[in-house]
């Protein structure tokens, strides 16, 4: 079909200026019905759209960088997680945050260029394009209290997820709050950050395994006295 269309376009071009479309169609009845300028433009528009999707998809997928080998780390300070992700050269990643709601104060919360501190690990990594999407995991038993929190700005519910909310933030980064029971399967490898004081480490690993979620870098945050 495509070959016939292209042949027709060539024929129309060759005959341009001399013959009307109707005449071209008369001379080449097999292709004439489909092959006129409008069809060519329609096909071009469809091709343009497909090309646009391919270009941005390719660009997006090329910008996601994964660690060459899977590893687990234990850190005493949240900031150290950034050093690990930086060293492993990961970029454009999904983060499963087994911790409290991340600091997302936006550019306005800083005096000058944002710098990493103890409370802004996640936001800083969003600024650095290490993280593109965040799943904030809230313990199932805390969900109802969490969603009623006055400082939370839920945008909408996540379709197909029993307990899932898109959360508003100043950078517009995709941020979904959900519970361990509602956490969906992830097709791509994720970054995982577990705060030991909020989530049991072994239980969390078991959850990931049950959801077929694979992580290339798993970070466990434990304060020193607990180690």
């Amino acid at each position, binding site marked *: 079909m495509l070959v016939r269309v292209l042949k027709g376009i060539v024929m129309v071009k060759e005959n341009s200026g001399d013959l009307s*479309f109707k005449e071209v169609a008369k001379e080449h009845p097999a292709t004439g019905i489909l092959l006129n300028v*409008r069809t060519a433009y*329609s096909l071009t*528009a469809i091709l343009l759209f497909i090309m646009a999707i391919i270009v941005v*998809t390719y660009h997006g997928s090329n*910008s996601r960088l994964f660690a060459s080998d899977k590893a687990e780390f234990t850190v005493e300070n949240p900031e150290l997680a950034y050093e690990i992700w930086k060293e492993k050269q990961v970029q454009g990643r999904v983060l499963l945050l087994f911790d409290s709601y991340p600091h997302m104060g936006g550019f306005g919360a800083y005096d000058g260029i944002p710098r990493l501190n103890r409370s802004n690990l996640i936001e800083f990594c969003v600024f650095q*394009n290490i993280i593109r999407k965040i799943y904030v995991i809230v313990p199932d038993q805390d969900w109802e209290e969490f969603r009623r929190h006055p400082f939370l700005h839920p945008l909408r519910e996540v379709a197909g997820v029993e307990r899932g909310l898109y959360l508003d933030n100043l950078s*517009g980064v*995709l941020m979904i709050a959900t519970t361990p029971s509602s956490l969906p399967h992830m097709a791509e490898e994720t970054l995982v950050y577990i705060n030991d004081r909020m989530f049991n480490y072994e239980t969390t690993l078991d959850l990931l395994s049950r959801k077929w979620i694979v992580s290339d870098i798993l970070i466990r945050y434990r304060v020193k006295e607990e180690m």
Partner: protein
Amino acid sequence: MKKNEAILLLVLFLFAFSLRFYDLSYPDFKWMDENAHVPAAIHYWNDGQSEPDNWEHPPLRHIILYGFLKLFGDNPFGWRMRNVLSGAIAAVLTYLFARQISGSRKTALMAGLLLATDPLHVVFSRYTCDEVYGGAFFLAAVVLYVKYAGTLKVGDTSNVTDAHKQGMLFVLSAFFMGCALAIKWNFVPGWILVLLLALFRNADSRDVRSAAFVSSIYLLVPLSMYLLSYYQWFGRGYTVKELMELVINGYYSLQSYTSETYIPGMTFLSHPSASEWFVRPIVMGQGIYLNAHLGEFNLFVNNPPVWILTIPSMIGLAIVAVRKKSMTIALPVIFFCASYMLFLFVRRPVFLYSAVPLLPFAFTAIAFLTVKLSDRFSAKLYYAVLALMLSWSLFLYPLVTAKKVPIAPYRYILDDTHINIT
């Protein structure tokens, strides 16, 4: 187009450009939203992020501004030339639109001059306001569509060259519509309207190939533009599905805006409704009294002596269109209503700057009826109305563009309570 009309258009462009360009480097610091727009343009180009600007709006604005920053430097010219140029081009496009609608040069000239001198359009053309260049893209799309609609019809005996010319007009219209949509969603009603008008033009929708042509061009070209404007954002690792998530989130976020969402004391908060734009005076902005007799102000005004004629003119034009059974004459009314309805009924505060893209349609209607009335009563009426309107707009020019002005002649405007005086 004849040579003398081309010269007229050039003069109109230069006039509109001069009003917008004069003393452009003042103030030499970023003011109001420029503080967010300029760093956001750099941030988006480098990192695909819109902060410190709003993330909900599509990002073509950042890309264009970044281009101007590269061209003119990170200085007042780099920040504002995008708007100066598109504002001046909008005056020319308004002329062309009014000419297409009325066939009259007098109507076109009046509409073009009204936009060239409109105080609100001038002020926002000297600033980084999205509506000026977004509105210019939208108007370009409409002008090209009207040109396209006036060419070949289904069943016309045509040659390939004519058909290609017509196709290109429609593609260009779709391209500019895509640019407008990739700047703000305000243009969605206008986009759908052009699509429907094109589909039902001469029963094109009944011919499968023509319907496919109209739908594919006017849906997919703008959508491709929209998608490609997010190229830098995709550079953060995102997928097309995630773009859809972002767009839906953006819609919900914008719907959740209330007056409390904005910084307290923001200039535009004094008038958060579109219902008063064309019916009562609106004056807001900021300024400084240099002494008892002299001041300097940057004001956003709706220019009541001209704008107040909008609704009556729209009604008048609608009546003329119905009587003459002319869809072409009805176009300013249809485009105006499609855009204005959105602002009237949307569930969030709407500020005066959103009126900017409506002005070409408003001024076309006003000019059309003025010419009709002057044809009926006296030719002098046209010149008298034009002279009055332009004099008034030019009288406001120094007041709204931060020139040093004597207080006395503007006292009754400055007494308005919505001016932040420093």
